[in-house]
């Protein structure tokens, strides 16, 4: 089954996600500039900046609080649809476990991500095919659920999640945006990847790489 994730792992993960997002913010802006307003990368990066600041200041002491602090900082800082959606991704991961949970195995990790996906789809109303972050997040979470059911290691499960998220982000190229601000561009969105789906890919890729 491989090793479980502990608080130190999650701290490394959050730092790693922030680093990956900061490194790729220009790329995310470029993706967004074709069908959005070109600020997605900067906006998401600003959200993670404030999450790092908040973590530094409040020093959350367990996995649940760390994830909730990260998400709440993003929600408070970023507007549009991206703030509530990407913030909720983390707050729901944190809310699914209790504050005394000291480690997370693949089954719990899968439950955490499933809860996060469910809440995001309810909040934003997006389904797979709407050309949103859900198109990367949905297959990634489903892949994790499958991995949890067959009981492979967390590391291998995350590797499969990265692949599923990448394929999902690629698939948005052939979709017409019908949710969020990019939906204003309608059919013009065809042929371009969704920026939010790529952000999901970078987040999951960063988690995987931190555990290598």
């Amino acid at each position: 089954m491989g090793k479980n994730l502990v608080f130190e792992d999650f701290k490394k993960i959050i730092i790693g996600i922030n680093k990956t997002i900061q490194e790729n913010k220009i790329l995310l802006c470029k993706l967004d500039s074709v069908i959005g307003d070109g600020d997605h990368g900067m906006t998401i990066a600003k959200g993670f900046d404030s999450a790092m600041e908040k973590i530094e200041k409040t020093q959350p002491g367990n996995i649940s609080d760390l994830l909730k602090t990260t998400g709440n900082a993003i929600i408070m800082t970023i507007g549009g649809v991206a703030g509530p959606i990407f913030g909720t991704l983390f707050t729901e991961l944190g809310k699914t476990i209790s504050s005394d949970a000291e480690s997370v195995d693949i089954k719990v990790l899968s439950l955490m991500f499933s809860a996060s996906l469910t809440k995001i789809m309810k909040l934003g109303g997006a389904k797979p095919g709407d050309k949103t972050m859900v198109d990367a997040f949905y297959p990634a979470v489903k892949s994790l659920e499958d991995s949890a059911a067959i009981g492979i290691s967390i590391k291998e499960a995350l590797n499969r999640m990265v692949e599923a998220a990448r394929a999902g982000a690629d698939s948005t190229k052939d979709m017409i945006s019908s949710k969020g601000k990019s939906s204003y561009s309608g059919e013009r969105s065809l042929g371009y990847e969704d920026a939010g789906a790529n952000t999901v890919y970078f987040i999951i890729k960063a988690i995987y790489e931190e555990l290598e």
Partner: protein
Amino acid sequence: MRKLINIPKDIVNEVMDGLVAANKNLLQRIGDFTIIARKDIPVKNKVAIVTGGGSGHEPLFSEYVGKGMADASANGQIFASPSSGIILEAIKAVEAGEGTLLIYNNYAGDVLNFEMAMEMAQDEGIKVEQVIVNDDVASGPKDKRDNRRGTTATPIVLKIAGAASSTGMNIDLLKAVAQKAIDNSRSLGVSLSSCTLPETGMATFTLEEGKMEFGMGLHGEAGIKKVDVMSADDTTKTILDMLVDDLPFNKGDEVIALINGYGSTTKMEMYIISRKIHLYLAEKGIFIYSTEVGEFCTSQEMAGVSITLVKLDAELKKYYDMPCEAPGFKKF
């Protein structure tokens, strides 16, 4: 793109600072936040009103902050909702012990962020209620008004609610008055050109030369009907046919008629439309109590107009007539 701007990422901040500088006796900015507030907040013995939404629609929202209108506006980046954090700061800044009513337009991002801010404020013990403006008849059928976007009725709703709040009524009564103003409002617009996003210089949509589109959204959302450009009179008639039928507005009703320019439409065109509105409604036996002509809610340099009709009763008329002093709306 031909726009007089500096660094794109500074646009919203610079607009805030310029607006306050030009109205220094009326308005202030709250800290570094993209919040515009009345100079004299918190105003005692009154429910506070917070509005807001994406920037780029000036004079909406911040020019409707002032005496007898909104107490504060929470502003996002261009065409994007403010964060729940900014909205929460606005609520805390204006709160004077009587609670706060949120009045904003029906867009996914705004609903998400305003509702999150409302929950956070309630957790801090502040009484907060909300009404969501959804006057645009093009964005959903009559029986699904929840899907409809908020557009140019917002200044009128803020005018009426602002006046009502200044009488000291409680938050539940105020919410009912604001909701009645929304329920009595219908708007529809027509676009003759696209607009460009100042951050990228890219057009939000393309509209071929010689075409016009009814029901286009404030951010280029697809409309309901694309046709060859029609005369001002025929355009006005097409819009009014839909508006009058939707509420419906009936013979003997009294209305406010608001003609809004989207950004690059001239006052000349707006007055030609005003003329036709008066002829059309007179024929239907609908009485125009007041006509507002100008820019109330723009979409950058988009060409086109929207028409809003608001049906009045004695209560709404009383609040509409009360004095107000906001940069974008003054009544004495």
